[in-house]
Each structure stands twice: as structure tokens, then as C-alpha cells.
């Protein structure tokens, strides 16, 4: 056991893998408020961060948690929080603040059933749209959806990277089963996965503008206390960070929030396809459901059904071009989700005109089984 705990190969929970991924990515600061099924992330970082010289704080609620995370990020920290549905709902106003102020931070939402306190100890994927549209106003969100313990680790690292790279909050959507499931994983060595740092200014302080327009759309970011003095506000602001009501400046700001992400989707998209080359039927799923889909298509292939699977790991921005390309020759598409139909609408939007889209949903707190997906494949075949 101690071998497993200490060695390269470790038996980890999904939530513990998020903790280890955050540490790998260089987390400096965690603020959170306990909520099932995400608490192991707070507990893990409460243990690890002080030892690493990082900082952990249990705040009085989720609103305070994300506020502290954004404050710490502006003081230069790589910062994260973790929560579940109700907590995410409380955070969304300040997540919007992070979009507007272009503050990098990571939010892990270990989904449970909802609405309301719903199903605290049961699985669901019903916050998929919330991760895209949670806060008010126009913005482009990034959300990632791992499906295994190893991916919890990797996608947490990637979430930090993307948040620093694009100066934006990034959501990692996991779920109750993934958070609590244990799997063996080989821990990546330092340097094995890329770890990105936020772009820093290299100009004199009096030239510095916190929201500068650059060719990459992403402005270098100085931290508080580094000699650059600037204003950060959630009010729509100009390049220097001062509130503005000038239509052209308002447009520029909002376009920047969208374009700095939409122009660089190549760096953000991540989609896995399996046996799609000759597939006539495609099963599209993400998170834990993708595991069942993997089993189901194997079973169907044994029965000579030409079926393949598509699994977006980046779910927002939605990887339209990659998925459309994979769907080119497909006649039937099954979208399997643990909700009443959220991502299915994205697929309907981009599916080839001559393909039929079928929805397979489950929202009773139980996992999607391979058999269920296999049955659906049979039904539509």
C-alpha cells in the first residue's frame, strides 16, 4: 500500500487526481467551501498546500471562495476552487467577474443531480450548459470533461494551462462517480506534461496597460505588488482598466473576450474518436458516459455493427469542426448524456443534414450502462 501511495503508480480517486494535477500544474492558492461530492479536493489541498508552502483557506461560503481565488490570482497566484452544482450556482456572479477582468483561475465542478440540493451523492451531467452559460452577459467559456482518474489529473493540469494562457476562468466538469472512483494511475514525471505560466509584461510600468490589445488578443498580466499599478473592475472597461461607456470601447472589450478564445481553438479543442473510420453510427458522449460508450461500441462491433465513438474532452467551446469532420459519413448519431438533453442540441446544430440524431438520456442518479447504449444502437440500426 505504501508503495502504491508513494511510488510512480498510485491508486487514486478522481478527486485526489484533481488535487495531484493542481499540484503538478503549480497551484499556489486554494479557497473553497465543502460540498459533496467535491470535498476530497478541499481536504487533499488542506493537507498538501501548507507542506508545499502554498496557501489553503476554507471560506465562509462559495461566493467568498471564488472571490478569494480571484483576489489571489490578481496577486499573482495560480488559484483554484472546487465545488458541486449548488456551490457553482453561488459562484457564477464572480466567475463572470473573472471573465470580465480576464483573471486566470480554475473551478472544478464535481457534478451531482439537480436542480437545488438535488442528489448530493449521485451522478449527473446536468451542469453542462451551466458551465457554458452560468453567468450573465456575453462571454466565451472554456470547460473540460475528463472521464477517468488519469484524465482528472491531466485535465486539471490543462485547465490551469488554458486559464493562464488565455487569462480566463476554466471549468473542469467531473461527476460524483468519477470523483469517488479509484483507479491505478502512473504519475507523470515533472516535465512530462506541459505546464504553462501566464504571460508577463516586459515593458516599463508607465507604458503598461492591463488590458492591452495584442496580436494574440491576450494581454500580459502583471500581478499586484510588482510595480505596475492598474485598475481592475467588473465594469466594462478600456485597455487601461477604467470604466467606459464609449460604444467602440465596449465593443472592443466584449469582442476580445470572445475572440481571444475563438481564434485559438486549435490549442483548446481535444476530442477522442474511436473506430470512426468506417462507422455508419456514432455514439457521442463525454465524462463517465464515454466509458460506457467505449464498452458498448466494442460489443456492437463484435456483432458487426459499424459503430464508432466520439468523446469531446473539451466541451466548451464546443469543438464543432472536429466533430463535424468525424461525422461526415455517419448516418445515425446517438448522443448519450446523464441529463434531459444538453449537449445533444450542439450536435443537432452541426450534424450532417442527412444524418439522424437520437438522444439517450438518463437522470435517475445512476450511471449509464454499456448495455443501455448497446440497446440504443440496436434500436436505431
Amino acid at each position, binding site marked *: 500500500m505504501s508503495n502504491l501511495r508513494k511510488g510512480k503508480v498510485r491508486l487514486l480517486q478522481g478527486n485526489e487526481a484533481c488535487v495531484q494535477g493542481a499540484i503538478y500544474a503549480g497551484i499556489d492558492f486554494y479557497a473553497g467551501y465543502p460540498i459533496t461530492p467535491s470535498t476530497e479536493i478541499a481536504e487533499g489541498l488542506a493537507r498538501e498546500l501548507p507542506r508545499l508552502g502554498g496557501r489553503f*483557506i476554507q471560506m465562509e461560503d462559495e461566493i467568498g471562495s471564488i472571490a478569494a481565488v480571484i483576489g489571489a490570482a490578481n496577486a499573482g497566484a495560480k488559484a483554484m476552487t472546487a465545488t458541486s452544482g449548488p456551490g457553482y450556482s453561488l459562484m457564477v456572479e464572480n466567475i463572470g467577474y473573472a471573465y470580465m477582468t480576464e483573471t486566470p483561475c480554475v473551478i472544478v465542478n464535481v457534478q451531482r443531480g439537480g436542480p437545488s440540493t438535488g442528489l448530493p451523492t449521485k451522478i449527473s451531467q446536468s451542469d453542462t450548459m451551466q458551465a457554458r452559460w452560468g453567468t450573465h452577459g456575453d462571454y466565451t467559456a472554456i470547460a473540460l470533461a475528463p472521464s477517468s482518474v488519469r484524465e482528472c489529473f491531466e485535465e486539471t493540469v490543462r485547465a490551469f494551462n488554458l486559464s493562464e494562457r488565455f487569462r480566463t476562468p476554466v471549468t473542469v466538469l467531473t461527476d460524483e462517480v468519477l470523483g469517488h472512483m479509484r483507479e491505478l494511475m502512473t504519475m507523470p514525471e515533472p516535465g512530462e506534461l506541459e505546464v504553462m505560466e501566464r504571460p508577463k509584461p516586459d515593458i516599463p510600468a508607465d507604458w503598461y496597460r492591463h488590458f492591452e490589445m495584442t496580436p494574440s488578443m491576450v494581454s500580459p498580466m502583471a500581478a*499586484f*505588488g*510588482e510595480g505596475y499599478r492598474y485598475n*481592475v*473592475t*467588473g465594469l466594462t472597461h478600456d485597455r487601461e482598466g477604467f470604466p467606459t461607456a464609449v460604444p467602440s470601447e465596449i465593443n472592443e472589450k466584449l469582442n476580445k473576450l470572445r475572440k481571444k478564445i475563438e481564434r485559438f481553438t486549435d490549442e483548446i479543442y481535444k476530442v477522442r474518436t474511436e473506430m470512426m473510420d468506417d462507422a455508419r453510427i456514432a455514439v457521442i458522449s463525454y465524462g463517465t458516459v464515454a466509458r460506457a460508450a467505449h464498452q458498448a461500441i466494442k460489443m456492437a462491433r463484435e456483432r458487426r455493427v459499424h459503430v464508432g465513438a466520439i468523446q469531446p474532452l473539451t466541451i466548451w467551446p464546443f469543438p464543432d469542426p472536429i466533430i463535424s469532420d468525424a461525422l461526415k459519413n455517419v448516418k445515425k448519431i446517438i448522443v448519450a448524456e446523464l441529463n434531459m438533453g444538453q449537449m445533444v442540441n450542439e450536435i443537432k446544430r452541426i450534424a450532417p443534414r442527412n444524418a439522424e440524431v437520437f438522444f439517450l438520456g438518463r437522470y435517475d442518479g445512476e450511471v449509464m450502462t454499456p448495455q443501455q447504449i448497446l440497446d440504443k444502437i440496436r434500436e436505431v440500426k
Partner: protein
Amino acid sequence: MEKDTVVKEKEVQRSDVVHHYLRPKKKFPNVWCAGCGNGIVMGALIRAIDKLKLDKNDIVVVSGIGCSSRMPVYLDFNTLHTTHGRAIAFATGVKMAKPRLKVIVITGDGDAMAIGGNHFIHACRRNIDITVVLINNKIYGMTGGQFSPTTTAGAFATTAPFGNYEKQFDIVKLASAAGASYVARGTVYHEQQLEKLIEGAIVKKGFSLVEVVSNCHTYYGRLNREGDAVAMISWMKDHAMPIQAAVKLPPEKMVGKFVTGLIHETDATEFCEEYDKLVQRLKEKEAQK
């Protein structure tokens, strides 16, 4: 004659001090009504910081949403204008991430006591080294005169058209009871005292609160027939009682008056220091292994 010129010179210097700390390029005139107490508090804050000879780069001013919370935008420090009620929570993150920074929160009575009440009491409890300057004008200025948790009983507000029937927070008592290290009350009439109170608050390790009794003549004054800015500020002069005098007065002499000055001070341990001690302890343990 001679005395007069000396005074004038002093005045010039004092106003120069203010300009040294205002953002040179942008955002004037400010958003405040002429005569609003917010400007006086800003002046006092600047002078207090100047007296302490702090480096502008090491100061972070955080605020929430409200007329008072617009202040940081004008100040040449690191400034973070956040969401309504959450300034203290943002400030907690800033302070923890870089404890060497001086973190000052500017907030209103609605911002800190209503929507932000939870963060306020917990920051007091943790005794984290943040200075909170709470501008109490007893009303929601920015949204147009609704009552706040400090609106006087019976007073009128747009959402208390028949007089306020809610009970009020005594902010100073609340902060003291919740664990703040330094709790003071000043007014915009007593500008020099205010400056000293803010100075003391910044110097003090731990959570410091300076409640500033201020005027919103535009809404509170008008709705309650308390007159213009001058009338409201004069009222403060007549009703403020320094703590040194207040403790000697019988209760009946205090009716209608309010206490000002440094009201509560303790030397409890500070949050970030406690955390750093823990980190140190763990490091030593690790080294022993």
C-alpha cells in the same frame, strides 16, 4: 500677516499630497455628487498613507459596489473594484497570496453590512490583516436611496416610504464582538481625527475597521429633510462624542449622540501569521525526517 502665509503654504502642500496619489490621466471629474462625504474620506485615506510613507506599489485598495466603492478607480495604487458585497472576500485572497501587501478595503454600509455581512464577520473572526474603511451614509446611494441595515429607525427611504421599521446594526459593536483587532469610528466632519484613525488602522496588525459616519444628502438628506451637505455634516459635529468623553458621561447625556475615536483594540494573533507558523512547523517536521 506672516502667520497667514505659513498657513497657506501648508494648505498647498496638503493638496499636492492628494494629487500625488490620484491617477494622473483618467476619470475626473468623479462620479460623486458635490458635497458627498466620499471625497473627504478619500482625502483622509491619502494623507494617512502619505504619513506612513508607504510605497504605492505595496498598497492594494479593494472595493465592492456602491458610490463609496468607486473610490479605488481614482487612486494610484493597485486597485480592485469587485462585485457587490464581496470586497473583503477578494481582499482575503489578495492578502493571503501576498501577505507583504497592505490591503485596504473601501466599502459602504449596504456593501459590507447587507450583502457582504457574512464576509465581514468572518474576516473579523479570522483577524486577517486587512484595513476596512466602511463609509456609513445609512442608505444605498448608488441605487437611489433604499434603506440599508444601518438606516435609522423611523427614517425614510425609497423602500421605506412609511418609515424604516427594521432594526439597525451597530457596526462597531459587531466588529468588536466578531474578533477585529482595531475598531474605530470617525466622521467626515472630523477629518483630522479620521486621518489618524485610518493611519492607526493601517499600522495595526490584524483586522482593522474604521467606520466613517458620512452624508448622502442627495438621498438620505432629502428624504429625511436633513438638509444639504453642510447641514448634514454640521449635525455630525453636534452629535459626535469622543470616546474619552463618552465613558465619563451618564447614559442619559448620551441619548442621540454617537461615540467616535478608537473604540476597541486587542492584540490577538493574525491569520496569515498563524498560517505561516503552520507552514514553518511542517517544514521543520519534514527536515527532521
